[in-house]
């Protein structure tokens, strides 16, 4: 049974992939994450998250663009799927609703 739950780190990664658009692959995602969150994940943990996102069907990937900079190895580009987008939106709406229900925040 596939889980469709979206974890906190996964959610951020998913959003970053959305921001990057056509240019979302390992290195750019890491750098964008560092820029936006001041926290730099390791290659391994990022790819673990990407692997999970792909398994859940929130992103899809294709391989291309080997460069000399990478020692002739290909990149894997990620793109948000429709399910990914709707899940992201749903998660966001839920947060909006929930956060307004907290009385002391005064929003």
């Amino acid at each position, binding site marked *: 049974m596939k889980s469709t739950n979206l974890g906190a780190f996964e959610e951020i990664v998913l959003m970053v992939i959305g921001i990057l658009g056509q240019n979302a692959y390992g290195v750019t995602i890491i750098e964008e994450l560092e820029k936006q969150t001041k926290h730099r994940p390791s*290659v391994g*943990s990022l790819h673990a998250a990407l*692997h999970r996102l792909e398994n859940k069907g929130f992103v899809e990937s294709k391989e291309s663009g080997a460069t000399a*900079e990478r020692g002739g190895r290909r990149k894997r580009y990620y793109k948000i799927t429709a399910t990914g987008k709707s899940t992201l939106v749903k998660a966001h709406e839920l947060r909006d609703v929930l956060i307004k229900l907290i009385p002391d925040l005064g929003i």
Partner: protein
Amino acid sequence: MSAPIPPKWPFWILSKVCSDRQLEILYGDAIEIFQRRVMTKGVGKARLLFIRDTLSSIKYFSLKWSGNQRSLASTLAIYKNYLKLTLRSFSKNRLATNINFFGLVVGFFAALLIAQYAIYEMNYDHFHEDYDRTYRVSFKRVQNNQIAFHGATTFLPVGPTLLEEFPEVYNQSRFYYPFAHGVFNDREKAHHIEKPVFVDETFFEVFSFKLLEGDSESALAQPNSVVLSETLAKKFFGSKDALGRQLRFSFEDGAAELIVTGVMQNRRSDSHLQLDVLMSMKTLRQWPTFKSSEWSLPFFHTYIQLKDGTNPQVFENKSGVILEKFRKENIGDGISESFILQPLQDIHLDSHLTFELEENGNRQAINFLILIAILILVIVYLNFINLTTALSSLHAKEVGIRKVMGSHRKQLIPRFLIEALVMNVIAFLIASVAVVLSLDYITALTGIYFELTTDLSLWSMFFGVVMLGAVISTLYPTIVLTAYEPITVLRGKFSLGDKGSLLRRILISTQFAITVAMIGGMILISQQTDFLLTKDLGFKSEQLLVISAPQEVSENGDYLSSLRSFENGALNRASIHSFTSSSSVPGKVLSSGTIGGVGDKNEEEVSLYFNSVSYGYFETYGLTFLSGRPFSRSVLSDQQGIILNHAALQSLGYGENDNVIGEKIIDRGTEFEIIGIVNNYHHSSLKTSYEPIIFVLRPARPLYLSLNVSTSNLEITLEELAREMKLHFPADPFEYFFLDQVFDQEFKAELRYGDLLKGFSFLAVILAALGLFGLSSFLITQRTKEIGIRKVLGATPANLFSFLSSFFLVPMVSGGFLACAGLYYFGSIWLRSFPFRIELQWLVFLAPLATVLLMTGITMVVQTIKAQRILPAETLKNE
């Protein structure tokens, strides 16, 4: 400028564990990040972070095996299938499987049993806490380049002196045991106890025997204290508390009232110290026994403990200093004395000195048994290889089909390895259980006592060895099997040709050699044992009753006259023909000592054995005189007379034809006259040379009374003797044995060892026969077609017989020759270790060769009959 490159090894690691798909992306990302970091952070830091990045990408999702559950499940299914096929092939080839299995179980059983016994023997005295730092100080005296004395014992003050003079020694403990038994009297009954010992109060510090009652520090600190073993305490005092009870002890040097200060655990069978009674050393010191001769009588077993880091060899060399200091007058020209340190754990197997505490084990015998165990294992595995290869043709079609369906050779190997391992594991488990269950029975049967090791690491080591052997021995059959070409085997032809024939010939040659060697060795050993068993002892041992001499003097009499009246009372009976007393009887310890100048040539001291006897000793034991005469009551000067045996004559330096009767020997001021020379006889053992013995007439207290009795109405005679003794020595127990029984006991041990070897050799022969059977079956299946053609061309059964046998001729001759050479070489060495031995006889070589020949012949006849039944039409119609 060449671009900086990241370290290479992380890639290697990743490539081993990560799936190819993930590897490329992960590694690509890592390199790209590295390149960017080189710009911002410098090469060094970038490299470090690169290593972190790459290694951290080894996560579950990136592993080769993850996300791949289907292939894991299918691998398991394959193995499950292999297991099923294994069991099926076992039940399909029941006879072959049973033969193979039987061979494995029997072989493992024998090897395991021997290994257990050897381990037990080699671990003697390992239970002492500091066993590896404890040494026994033995004393060696060399005279004119010959060892004059080498005893397990040394002088009374050696232990304390070493402790005092050398900082390396941190503890010492001494033993003294009187040469005879002592009598313990618990007010109700007297008991003779063999080897009661006097020990230092440090006994419980040096040796880890548990004190069950009493305080280990103070138990032996006071004079007249005694510690008893649990069994003995029960024997003396029943279930009542033993602590604080009194015991009267008497032996040849004195008597004392002892107080029980401790009860210790019973004897441990895995120790060379078999002790039931410990008396404090201070008890001994209150008698004058060794007062004036502390540095001249080497009678004390002395154990010392060396501090960590002390080199025992170096210490041994310098410890001799104290001998030079205290025994100056005993060391002269051509005489040197030294201490030899014996590690505590080696005493049981390696020490065979004068005055051992018990008859020690024999490392040579243990090594020999281990060799047999290894040989048995070799035969078992050779059999296994032969039989498995022989069965391989049955698997040929399976291999062919599997290969056609796309199996690699690599994938087929586990299929047959599993079959072999399953068989080996089951055989090992059955053999282990059999060893555990049969241990008591084996002890009862052979009289060899040992305990199984509880050390799990040893058991797993056995298991490891067995498994390793299984894998190695499966290798060859597996290679043979998996090499089949699918096309040929599926066409119904699976001859191996001559590919492995050299190897097979070597295997069978080895097997023949081992079998011949084992049978020959067994014959040699039983011949030598028989020789010793039937050898004339040199004295009369039949109808000789030996009574432990009384030690307690009756209140209103003196010892000698009581003994005299006992003797007269006994001799009054018609059933008792002679009565004599002595300090030793054959089979019992002789006291040893030195004798000073001989005749007028006041030469150096000579070490000899002494036996103090009374009148009639020589007549009772039927010893023959070479010259001179026995002691006689009618010659008064015989009180100063001595009688030598032939060996003693030689030790004293007399020639063969010297007339020594009437010669004088002066020992420490006293003059003795030689009045007779008796023939040599075996006093203690047939395995040692004749001891030089001097017989002196000593009317003092004897240890044994020897009586020549009629065997008719023995019960009545014994009862009468007991009553007679009670009359004169009311406080002493009546304890006796028959002399021939003592020697029987020694031989029994020898016979048992011989029986054991025979049993194992018999096993080896059976195993070898099994192997031969397997191999010849293999041969026939390989050559069914050839046999068919031969039969079509008119081969008779005799022709077939010689054809089949021809394969075994060369290996048999070469193996047999090799074995005979080995037998001759090692047999001669072994025989030379006996002073009394047989010559190597042709039988030793011919009998095993004949046995093997017969065995092969029978197998070949059986196989010829089988081959005869093959119908040429059946085998030739294929193809």
